[in-house]
């Protein structure tokens, strides 16, 4: 029966490429193999986001007068609505955390080396899209915290030199955060970003398949043992996904994502308003920069600094290798450690202070 079905399908679609992939794809087995799982976890969490996001869309209404009420309806009246929304929110945060871990694992195993520059670039763009996913999704419940956090976020964007005000106006759909902002953020969150992300994920995975899994430079690729991707590695990855699912379920059941109070544009901003944790390091840095540094405005200088740092980081595959294509391991590891330490320390400081 199975063979019959496979034959029927094979006559209509050329499955040789898939069969080839299943039979021959391997994963190197060494001390850093565990870091390979993080790409898969990121993909798994993104799939969770897509599924829960679609379910939420069945009830969510993206208008200022109905957004908050519809989310409250989901949380209180819809069967398992609380679970879907809590998993969506927790999964979004875990996804960004895991994406960062995945990025730094690539840095510390120097997997960005030629010919994997495009894999790195697509990955970095995907991380940026994830951050934008988080930023746009945060506003959608239209509660007090999200409203003012979006105000703070778009204010920061507005202070960027030259194009800042235009970006802020584009994001807000006007001079301030309001009904047009919610409509725009909804469109970004459910149409534009998912389409862009799925296309890039497809490209990212295709590049990974084409170039194979990278082996750290301190190992000789030919002498490293290989594990079959199907079923050996895939089953292990499946175990990790199940663990992630258990963690998500536990977080959603024990700490359901709170709804807060409905946004009121006339109310004063809640005390200690700050953005989501993944923007805290930048936010805290901007707070520390004096209002004027020499003849420059401190905030503009800070944003320029972040822009330069981001650009420097995007082109890592080009400055992180020598002419022969070998990793400048010490330099890149040093910069990676510095960046990871900065992000971790300033995120904690931004949260505590």
């Amino acid at each position, binding site marked *: 029966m199975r063979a019959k079905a496979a034959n029927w399908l094979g006559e209509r679609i050329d499955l040789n490429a898939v069969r080839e992939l299943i*039979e*021959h794809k*391997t994963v*190197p*087995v060494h001390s850093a193999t565990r870091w390979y799982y993080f790409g898969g976890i990121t993909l798994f969490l993104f799939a969770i986001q897509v599924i829960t996001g679609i379910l939420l869309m069945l009830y969510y209404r993206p208008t200022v007068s109905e957004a908050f009420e519809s989310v*409250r309806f989901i*949380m*209180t009246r819809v069967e398992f609505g*609380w*679970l879907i929304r809590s998993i969506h929110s927790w999964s979004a945060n875990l996804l960004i955390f895991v994406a960062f871990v995945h990025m730094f694992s690539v840095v510390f195993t120097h997997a960005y080396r030629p010919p994997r520059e495009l894999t790195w670039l697509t990955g970095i763009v995907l991380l940026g899209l994830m951050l934008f996913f988080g930023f746009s999704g945060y506003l959608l419940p239209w509660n007090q915290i999200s409203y003012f956090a979006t105000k703070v976020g778009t204010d920061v964007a507005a202070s960027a030199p030259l194009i800042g005000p235009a970006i802020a106006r584009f994001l807000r759909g006007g001079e301030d955060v309001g009904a047009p902002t919610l409509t725009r953020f909804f469109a970004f969150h459910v149409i534009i970003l998912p389409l862009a992300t799925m296309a890039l994920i497809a490209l990212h995975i295709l590049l990974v398949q084409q170039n*194979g899994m990278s082996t750290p430079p301190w190992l000789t*690729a*030919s002498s*490293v*043992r*290989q*594990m*079959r991707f199907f*079923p*050996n590695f895939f*089953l*292990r990855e*499946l*175990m990790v996904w*199940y*663990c992630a*699912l*258990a963690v998500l*379920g*536990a977080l959603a*059941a*024990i*700490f*359901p994502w*709170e*709804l807060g*109070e409905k946004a009121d544009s006339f109310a004063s901003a809640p005390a200690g308003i700050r953005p989501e944790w993944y923007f805290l390091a930048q936010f805290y840095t901007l707070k520390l920069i004096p209002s004027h540094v020499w003849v420059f405005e401190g905030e503009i200088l800070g944003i320029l600094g972040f822009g330069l740092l981001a650009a420097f980081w995007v082109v890592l595959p080009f400055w992180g290798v020598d002419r022969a294509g070998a990793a400048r391991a010490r330099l890149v590891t040093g910069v990676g450690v510095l960046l990871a330490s900065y992000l971790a320390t300033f995120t904690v400081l931004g949260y505590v202070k």
Partner: protein
Amino acid sequence: MRPPVIFLFLLVPLFLLAEGTTKNTCLDCHSVLDGRAQRPALLVKNDVHTASGLSCSDCHGGDRTSDDPGGSMNPAKGFIGKPARKAIPKLCARCHSNPDFMRKFRPQQRVDQYELYQTSIHGKRLASGDENVATCIDCHSVHDIRAVKDPAAPVYPLRLPETCAHCHSDRQKMAKYGIPTNQFDEYRNSVHWNALKIRGDLSAPNCASCHGNHGAKPPQVESVAAVCGNCHVLFAQLYQKSVHEPIFSAASGGGGCIVCHSNHGIRQPTTAMLDGPKAVCSQCHDPGTPGANVAAQMAKWIDGLDSALKHSESVLARADKYGMEVSEAQVRLGDGRENLVKARLALHSFEPEQMKKPIEAGMAIANETLRASQDALHEKDVRRMGLAVSVIFIGITILAIWVLIRRIESNDAYRSGANAPAPK
């Protein structure tokens, strides 16, 4: 071409003229004197009149531009020295009762203070020759008179009670009038003091809110309810139509609201005022009489609703602490509290039937929110149970996958790597 130097001398009279308008020899001398004579010169810097461009001679007369004390304090130039106490209200009224003059400085300010003062107990006694009573300077201070809205002014709402108490708590001063001196002590234990001084609510009643300021007079029996009703409008309306109104109005020693709530020391009303050993109702209604029974019933209703709402609130808070979404029930609980307020208000009609409606509505809400909070707590337990079951299933699945991996790898000699395809 340079202007001739002689023109500079033409400017000298202008300087002299300018000096003449701002010169104040009173301050020049008094600021270097000692003790009491120096005090006005120091205080006047903070005076609202100084800020408006007035000077010593505007009240005391004399010539402030004269360097000679004999000239500056010359009675022929209107110098009156320290005004007689009895003359102070009239002296202040020269400007403060003159709308044309006041319009230059404070167009919105009233100009009837002196007229009101004359109708007050203070004004009447002063007119009859009693200089012991309050005049303008006793409340507003002298030489450092500040605007009422200035927080440092003695008549600023937050400071007014202490200002009145300065005289009214002085037993010696009040002895000859035979009026008590415990008003301030009582007021300090009242809900109004709490609102004014503890919460800093400037709209909370101070002495002047009930007694008036310039026309200060104690409210009489017939006007007490009207005075309290200025703020407690609905309470006063119900009371005016109640069975108690004619009875209380006829009572001696102050009627109206005072009968139950007292005057200066008004405490937070509780149901102990209705029923129990300290019940104010028992002053007239003996235990066991229909009136006392109705009061006890009202107390029971209010206590019942209050405790039902509090219980519901505490269970809701527990559910909220566990992260359950109970905001709708919390809003609904607010409606329940509103009904409690309505019931307390309806009490002032002294008709149980009027109280029944808000009490029943409030109880229905309390039960509804209690059910919602209990459901939320039950839901929390169900979620955790569901989590535990899911984790067990996930654990079993992970274990099954692990066994499967072991079985596969024991067969395909994965460990030796012999069966693995060569790397690309």
